[in-house]
């Protein structure tokens, strides 16, 4: 389809502003721009139709099944959107006086209280704007803690090799050396490897539990104890919290700080890449290190972005928390786990899970044997799913499983949807044996055929140019 710039007609515009009712101010010439930006010139009809056309070429979780592992694509309730759009929130200036923003403070305080209860933490901030940003904040808590005690020798953060890429990248951004420790074959922490990695230079451990293959690490208490004994702190990557919320708390597993992706676990929409929002929680002894805003609070604290974070996303998350309440939070977790196990068992017998045991909220299929047999790769299967209107699972992650497809159905999918999805996987399994070529060329019915990513990277075209 055409780009918005290719629909532009010189002189066309929307009537939005009244005539200026005061005298215009003169900008000294040395500050003036010489040519206007080549923004598109459109009427409102053009604009509306252009974006509607684009919107038809987007698949959201509210449009169909989206089992993207580690991303917790659950249904995003509409009521949360309505409440975030209330003028009483949307129109509030972040630097309005304390008397004028009592409602916003109540939202933040209430959400903080509930999330502390769910995680077993004692302090909470909403300043970080996304999960990786929350990791940065959380690991800086660890850094400040050691620095304040004058323990400057703690330069290393331990990260299992099955971790999300953001974990090691975060540790590096916080000035730590990353110690990658190998996972046990089941993706859980290899206790011997952990012990070997621990020492007087250990600042902390970053861990996801359930881990990135969807298994709960049953040694978790031993793991956090070992890290604490070595003088390090334990950081909980909350990417997989949806499996256990209301069932078991990271604080009770021995973690000292945690981040939660509100756009995963607490059902706020992801907007095609963001905004997310992140809550970072900590035990009481770390509270003094939480970030604050230079203008909104007293200075001297760390600060990871302007103001108080993605507030309107927190409103959505609070609405969700209130909706689920004390009964709904564990109910969501339990059914997320049930749905994952059900889907895994329904697919089993065709594509096989990498670990044949009860999983948590997600599971990994290992297609390496199937690829050897048929030549059809995890990528081919993923692309074939698109023809059925299903968003593909996460591919080639975690790196400890080859030809991995990672599925996380979430609790908001019905049995019928899961049965339908399993049926498609089974059909594709048979199809790949009969007609691998067809699957190599999938998708066949999508918006586009497979894109040439090599060309995109070798000869980058990163903006439209006037012909």
């Amino acid at each position, binding site marked *: 389809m055409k*780009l*918005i710039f290719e629909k532009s007609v010189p002189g066309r515009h929307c009537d*939005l*502003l009244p005539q*200026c009712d*005061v005298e215009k*101010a003169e900008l000294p010439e040395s500050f003036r721009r010489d040519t206007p930006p080549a923004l598109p010139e459109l009427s409102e009809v053009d604009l509306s139709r252009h974006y509607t056309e684009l*919107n038809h070429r987007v*698949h959201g979780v*509210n449009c169909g099944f989206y089992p*993207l592992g580690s991303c917790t694509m659950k249904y995003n*309730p509409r009521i949360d*959107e309505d409440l975030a759009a209330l003028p009483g929130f949307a129109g509030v*200036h*972040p*630097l*309005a006086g304390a008397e004028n923003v*009592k*409602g916003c403070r*109540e939202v933040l305080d209430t959400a903080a209280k509930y999330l502390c209860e769910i995680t077993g933490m004692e302090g909470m901030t909403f300043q970080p*704007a*996304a999960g990786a940003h929350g990791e940065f904040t959380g690991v*800086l808590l660890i850094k400040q803690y050691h620095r304040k005690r004058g323990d400057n020798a703690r330069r290393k953060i331990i990260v299992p090799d099955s971790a999300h*890429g*953001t974990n090691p990248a975060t540790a*590096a*951004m916080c*000035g730590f050396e990353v110690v990658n420790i190998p996972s046990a074959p089941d993706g859980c922490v290899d206790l011997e490897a952990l012990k070997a990695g621990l020492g007087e230079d250990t600042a902390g451990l970053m861990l996801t539990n359930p881990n990135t293959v969807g298994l709960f*690490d049953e040694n978790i208490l031993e793991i956090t104890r070992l890290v604490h004994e070595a003088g390090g702190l334990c950081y909980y990557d909350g990417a997989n919290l949806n499996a256990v919320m*209301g069932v078991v708390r990271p604080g009770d597993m021995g973690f000292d700080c945690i981040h939660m992706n509100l756009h995963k676990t607490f059902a706020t*929409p992801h*907007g*095609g*890449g*963001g*905004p997310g929002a992140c809550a970072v929680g900590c035990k009481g002894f770390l509270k003094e290190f939480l970030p604050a805003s230079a203008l909104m609070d007293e200075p001297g604290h760390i*600060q990871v*972005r*302007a*103001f*108080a974070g*993605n507030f*309107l996303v927190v409103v959505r998350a609070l609405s969700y928390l*209130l909706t*689920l309440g004390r009964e709904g939070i564990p109910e*969501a977790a339990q059914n997320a786990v*049930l*749905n994952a*196990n059900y889907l895994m068992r329904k697919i089993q017998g065709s594509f096989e899970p990498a670990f044949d045991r*009860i999983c948590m909220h997600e599971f990994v299929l290992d297609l390496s044997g199937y690829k050897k047999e048929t030549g059809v790769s995890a990528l081919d299967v993923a692309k074939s799913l698109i023809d059925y209107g299903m968003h593909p699972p996460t591919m080639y992650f975690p790196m400890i499983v080859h030809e991995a497809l990672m599925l996380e159905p979430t609790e908001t999918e019905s*049995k019928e949807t899961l049965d339908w999805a399993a049926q498609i996987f089974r059909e594709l399994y048979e199809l790949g044996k009969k007609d691998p070529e067809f699957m190599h060329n999938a998708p066949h019915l*999508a918006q586009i*055929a497979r*894109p*040439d990513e090599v060309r*995109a*990277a070798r000869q980058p075209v*990163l*903006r*439209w140019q006037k012909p």
Partner: protein
Amino acid sequence: MSYVPSTPAQRQEMLRAVGVEDYRELYRDVPEEMLLDRALDLPSAMSELEVSRAVSAMAAKNTQFSTILRGAGAYDHYIPAVVKSIPAKEEFLTAYTPYQAEMSQGVLQSIFEYQTMICELTGMEVSNASVYDGATAAAEAAAMCRSRKRRVTLISGAAHPDVINTVRTYCYGTGDELRVVPVKDGKTDMDALREMLTADVASFYVQQPNFFGLLEDADALGEAVHAAGALFVMGCNPISLGVLKTPRDCGADVAVGEGQPLGLPLGFGGPYLGFMATTMKNSRQLPGRIVGQTVDAKGERCYVLTLQAREQHIRREKASSNICSNEALCALTASVYLACMGPAGLKEAAEQCMAKAHYLMRGLTALEGVELVYPGPFFHEFVTTLPRQEEVLSALEAKGILGGLPVEGGILWCATEKQSKAELDQAIAVVKEVLAK
């Protein structure tokens, strides 16, 4: 209510299919002593209507001002209706990052268009798909400019305090040094900057217009920075770029800024939008997602996430940034805003911001005891002295007007195209009345 669609009977059927008796058995890997043996201390589940009442009651505890004369990093502009409705569409709203290009052309093309618009606004050659906000954009810019030999970052003391604080925090993370260039008469002290531009300086950041609303002599600052072999980073107000010289024309190597004025509500501080653009030469140092144009297997034009090997999911601890989620929907909002304003509309909005702010300044400084604190041209913010500050601000509040922000030396006022002459006159009259008492 947990949005779980399966009925109790279906859930039982599914448990049986999985081969377990009950939910407890699904958590068999969790040590017994760790399981939460009580209900969460949260209120009981609520119906949609109850939730609506509870949250609306919180919103009602905030003061809604009819006129906002406060800026300082968050600006009250008119948001056209279409700018609200388009990003609220279910598909745009509820998609994840466009990893699967065959299913995400709408998101990818919208980002490609956004990148183009940011390049047009700033005069730069490459834009990323957004970062969290203007402050993190400044911090990421500082990080992308550092090299092995040049590690020190300079920032103007006339930048937004939140930006300075955020850049300081990122520098604390990597263990690099941030030095703040002093302010003279409300602007970056050029002589001090020249002295501070040592051989270990990687980059210098200036905000245009700066925190006090003043226009910095960006060309001269840029020249000094380049003469010292460092990179020049400009933090820009995007609306002002409707009339102001582009950062590229001022010599900037990296242009960043807070995109909130482009159609995003004040929202008590977020979600906002950090934009980041640079030259082709520095494009591989740019963090975050970038969308590129290519062709599909049938030769049709299409879009994909590209240059991904720079990113954390591939480079892990060697990546220069850990950013993953960004502010895509805010970038879409900004694109719709820029498209409906068009070049003429954006210029008009910028001119009206300037006009209204100057009108407000003239009205206020005509009053006894109210004086402009800093000389020099400004865009849509300015600092005045103000006697009996608290009393004046309360009197304004009583009339539904959020007055300027108390800062060192006085009050930082802001006006935009959104305020009519009548609203400004009323604000001036209230101030006059209090001061006349």
